[in-house]
């Protein structure tokens, strides 16, 4: 990991004019990432942002770090090659739901199962923005868009369920209306060794305005957001009057007055069994029901790059550093005088 540095937010701001639509949720995320970077003590020169294609994918141009704005869906693959060869760098991947869950879905799940040291920020606005408003792999069934005038037939991904299903060692959810929470989640994800994914509920005020309004608007949050805290019973609502119980693989919302605090499920983000986290991810399939936010899972498993580099060290220890001449003479040889 890079040494720590003292920076201000300005050190993380590039000279490029930000060109998202006015009012886009991405502005808040950009600010939160820049602030998280200063709080983490990271150095811009040791940081790389790699993105694919989409509105969110313009992100690297606005960060005063190293960065690649690559091609649609492929950022996790490109970032994997970088992270495996340059463990000294802090490698981040940024993309939207179309980029990371649709065209790049394959790379996402394979990066996750390998547990390569990447921090992946998934901006989920449940719509294709840059192509001007088609349904995405997280759009709700029946959604009317330009490409689904009679309503989308596609069943959406539940990103947290998908990510947990790929055996993620770290997955968290946050939203673009809560800067403090975003900063905390980005820092936690960054500090995780392995692939860390943060799903960010992000509003597209042009093509999918208010997608998360029912849970993220100021007045709704208390009753609709379930903050997950490690080691604590899962409670939410005014004075914590609601709670969550996970039983037989299913999570359900209960009233604390009815069941008592002792009956509530205690959240352990490092639970080796991901099924409780999975059950929590199923609590709300649309943002119209109480929705868990925070760290679903933060679990340690061997990180791919560390093992790869250990294999290299082991091979050198066993066989000595590679010698080309020895290699060329490695098959049976014969002499001709």
């Amino acid at each position, binding site marked *: 990991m890079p040494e720590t540095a003292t920076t201000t937010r300005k050190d993380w701001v*590039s000279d*490029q004019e930000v060109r998202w639509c006015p009012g886009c949720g991405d502005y808040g995320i950009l600010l939160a990432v820049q602030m998280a970077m200063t709080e983490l003590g990271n150095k*811009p*020169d*040791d940081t*790389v942002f*790699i993105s694919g*294609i989409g509105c969110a994918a313009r992100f*690297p*141009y606005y*960060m*005063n*770090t*190293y*960065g*690649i*704005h*690559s*091609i649609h869906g*492929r950022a*996790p*693959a*490109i*970032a*994997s*090659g*970088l*992270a*495996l*060869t*340059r463990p*000294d*760098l802090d490698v981040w991947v940024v993309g939207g739901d179309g980029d990371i869950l649709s065209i790049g879905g*394959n*790379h996402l799940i*394979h990066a996750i199962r390998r547990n390569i040291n990447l921090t992946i920020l998934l901006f989920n606005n449940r719509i294709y923005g840059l192509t001007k408003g088609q349904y995405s792999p997280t759009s709700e069934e029946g959604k009317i868009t330009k490409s689904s005038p009679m309503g989308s037939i596609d069943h959406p991904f539940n990103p947290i369920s998908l990510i947990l299903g790929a055996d993620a060692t770290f997955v968290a959810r946050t939203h673009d209306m809560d800067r403090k929470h975003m900063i905390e989640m980005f820092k936690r994800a960054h500090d995780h060794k392995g692939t860390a994914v943060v799903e960010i509920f992000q509003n597209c005020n042009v093509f999918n305005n208010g997608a998360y309004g029912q849970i993220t608007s100021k007045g709704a949050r208390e009753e609709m957001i379930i903050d997950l805290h490690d080691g604590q019973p899962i409670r939410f609502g005014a004075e914590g009057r609601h709670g969550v119980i996970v039983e037989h693989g299913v999570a359900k919302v209960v009233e604390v007055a009815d069941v008592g605090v002792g009956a509530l499920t205690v959240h352990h983000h490092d639970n080796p069994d991901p099924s409780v986290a999975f059950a929590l991810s199923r609590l709300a399939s649309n943002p119209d029901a109480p929705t868990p936010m925070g760290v679903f899972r933060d679990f340690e498993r061997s990180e791919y790059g560390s093992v*790869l580099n250990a*294999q*290299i060290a*082991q*091979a*050198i220890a*066993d*066989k*000595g*550093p*590679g010698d*080309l*001449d020895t*290699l*060329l*003479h490695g*098959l*049976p*040889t*014969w*002499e*001709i*005088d």
Partner: protein
Amino acid sequence: MVIRSNDAEYVEGKETVVTDTEERTSEIPEVERIIVRFAGDSGDGMQLTGDRFTAASALFGNDLATLPEYPAEIRAPAGTLAGVSAFQVHIADHDINTPGDSPGVLVAMNPAALKADLPKVVEHGTLIINSDAFDERNLHKAGYESNPLEDDSLAGYQVISAPMTSLTKEACKDLGVKPRDAERSKNFFALGMVSWLYSRPTRPTHDWIEEKFKGKDLVIAANLAAFKAGDVYAENADLWASRRIVRPAHLAPGTYTNINGNTALSWGLIAGSRQAGIPLFLGSYPITPASDILHELAKHRNFGVRTFQAEDEIAAVGSALGASYGGHIGVTTTSGPGLALKSETIGLAVSLELPLVIVDVQRGGPSTGLPTKTEASDLMIALYGRHGEAPLPVISSSTPADCFFAAIEAVRIAVEYRTPVILLSDGYLGNGTEPWRLPSINDLPEIKVNYLTGPNHVDAEGADEFLPYLRDETLTRPWILPGTPGLAHRIGGIEKDETGNISYVPANHEHMVRTRAEHIARIADSIPPIVPAGDADADVVVLGWGSTRGAITAAVGRIRKKGRKLARIHLRHINPFPPNFGDLLRGYETVIVPEMNMGQLAHEIRADFLVDARSITKIMGQPFTPAELVERIEETIDA
């Protein structure tokens, strides 16, 4: 049974090397060369048998060339024509270029193998046949109405028929090997027979069996017993009249090894990494016939080689590009269908101007095509198969050993010019072998790497600045490693200007497109001019690229021997062409281009130089033989 003295040594220990080959072969008639084809069911171990015969011949000092041919299925239905797996080897006492025209000897382990490969055998050739496999069931599966061993259909050949399966079982019966397992050693019986017939040293095969099956004592015992039984059978079966020997070839002095193209290519990538002084990263997805490069490189972590078996072809090239961005040599290896999948990412590499080596071990296409058969039909996709104006260097390898040098050249161009490079090999080169005189590693070309570490420009006010796309005299942009203090910058697939930042300025796009093209064109300045082989005053040139080199060289040699003047050019660099190439071509009256495709290079020659190139094509999944090329070159000249 007679046990020869040298056989006793094998039983006693390994310290004695075979020294009596010369002595015990002194009476045997010499021949300049033989071509042996081992054919059997894909479960019969024919590739291994051919490989062992080849290895023994290589150690004996012959020049040789091999052609493995096997079905795409791991186990095609047993006993059928579709399941036939064959390995052809040409051994000679002189310098040869190809696996030969037609085998003089066919080893057929079952009726299907005989049926499939008999038409390839020369007139009056020798057939060594496992008679045990010629039962009604197998004959029927191969489509024989009567047993060719019993009717007159093989009258024109010298037939050596041996009950290999039962004799192998017999040889193994006291070893404690189950009959079913013993049967699997019958390929070593065949190898024993052929080794005796062609006076191959037996020691290398003994050593190999013991090494390969270390820890499996029963397997070792069964294979050694089968091998010896075959040898003894041949000796006792009155085959003395058929015995021949091919003396060692007079090759240039040096240390030799028998190498296939995929191994040579892997080693060349490692050599390129050494010459550049930066580590190698391979992102690859398994695909026939390229997977062996992944396997080979995966063995060499102690060279700092990072192999990454990606989830798909796209991630394979993506990870390689990410590694190159980080300052390693990013390589991806594939075959045709994989190259198609990588196309978009290669376009990004063109736009990012980062080093990247893409190896395409070509096979028959389109689509799945002929996965285990060779073809050279990816030239056009290599040159043009991208969106937008996206030129990149394309080079090719021409013999198995040449794959080593081609890989170094690919790394050189990629690293020094910061560009993706496509290296075209093919299945024939990848799997075929030849003796290779090992180069001195001190003679390998130097590969210069310059990472930019500070500002590279002074702005209008006299202040230092850094421009990621500021180019040197070759129009190459700097390679800047992330992590370099003070040089943080962004690059991407969107059109950019010198700063690396997005630019939609119309004139800038035209400037960038033309600059990228000129950048690639200027690589020609680093390519040595072509010196044609053959007759300096010839009016006709035979132009080739890739694995046709052996066949073209042999064919041109034969035609010249007949007194006709011919020149020969074989290309390493296809984009850009060597600097004198166009002028050279225009100096010939006739340009003939043999290719294992529909005439892709010929098309290119016509387009680039307005030269009336004549195509000779073959798209059968098999390389040209010299004999067919002689005929077709002569036809083309006389037309």
